[in-house]
């Protein structure tokens, strides 16, 4: 069974379009995250939600809007896509208060903006 899943795995779109990436976890975790991995493979946090509440918003352009309908889902909507948004986006989840706060990652979504 997949612990953290993301759809789609690949997304190719044109500048100016709006797109969404969905994430679901079946681990019963209370915290979910979005990370961005750029072309140099550098990983950086974008957002974090705990029990559907936004707790981290790491200076991300407001064209990016996360939405958490419940604690098992965290979707990422991107408006007016730009070339610089091309990257791999990872969803992750963890359970706050566990020994190590270990984060489990989804398979990533490669977004290509042309």
């Amino acid at each position, binding site marked *: 069974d997949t612990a953290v899943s993301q759809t789609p795995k690949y997304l190719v779109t044109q500048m100016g379009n709006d797109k969404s990436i969905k994430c679901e976890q079946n681990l019963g975790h209370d915290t979910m995250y979005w990370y961005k991995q750029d072309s140099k*493979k550098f*990983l950086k946090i974008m957002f974090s939600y*705990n029990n559907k509440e936004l707790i981290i918003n790491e200076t991300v352009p407001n064209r990016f809007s996360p939405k958490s309908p419940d604690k098992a889902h965290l979707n990422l909507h991107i408006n007016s896509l730009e070339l610089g948004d091309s990257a791999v986006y990872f969803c992750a989840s963890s359970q706050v208060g566990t020994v190590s706060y270990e*984060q489990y990652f989804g398979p990533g979504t490669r977004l290509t903006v042309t």
Partner: protein
Amino acid sequence: AQTVTQSQPEMSVQEAETVTLSCTYDTSESDYYLFWYKQPPSRQMILVIRQEAYKQQNATENRFSVNFQKAAKSFSLKISDSQLGDAAMYFCAYHHYNQGGKLIFGQGTELSVKP
């Protein structure tokens, strides 16, 4: 702000040999966690090993072990008996609970394994 630095963009090791990947970090906290993640070409992020800062004993997981030097803020990963499947990008990451749970990653080290 906390930072994580991996100074080796690329490393190479012969199959069955041992290799050490370096990581240093900067923090004013005393209690935190450190992780090594592996990212093979499939791009899946896989946890390799974790270390709690309050534990003096270095973590080990089969062929993987760390050398954790808290005072020096150093956290290196040693891979023994390297296998072809170890070829991947390796990321060092820092976590402190009051950072909202986020992981702060280093730049990564690309490890290649020669047969």
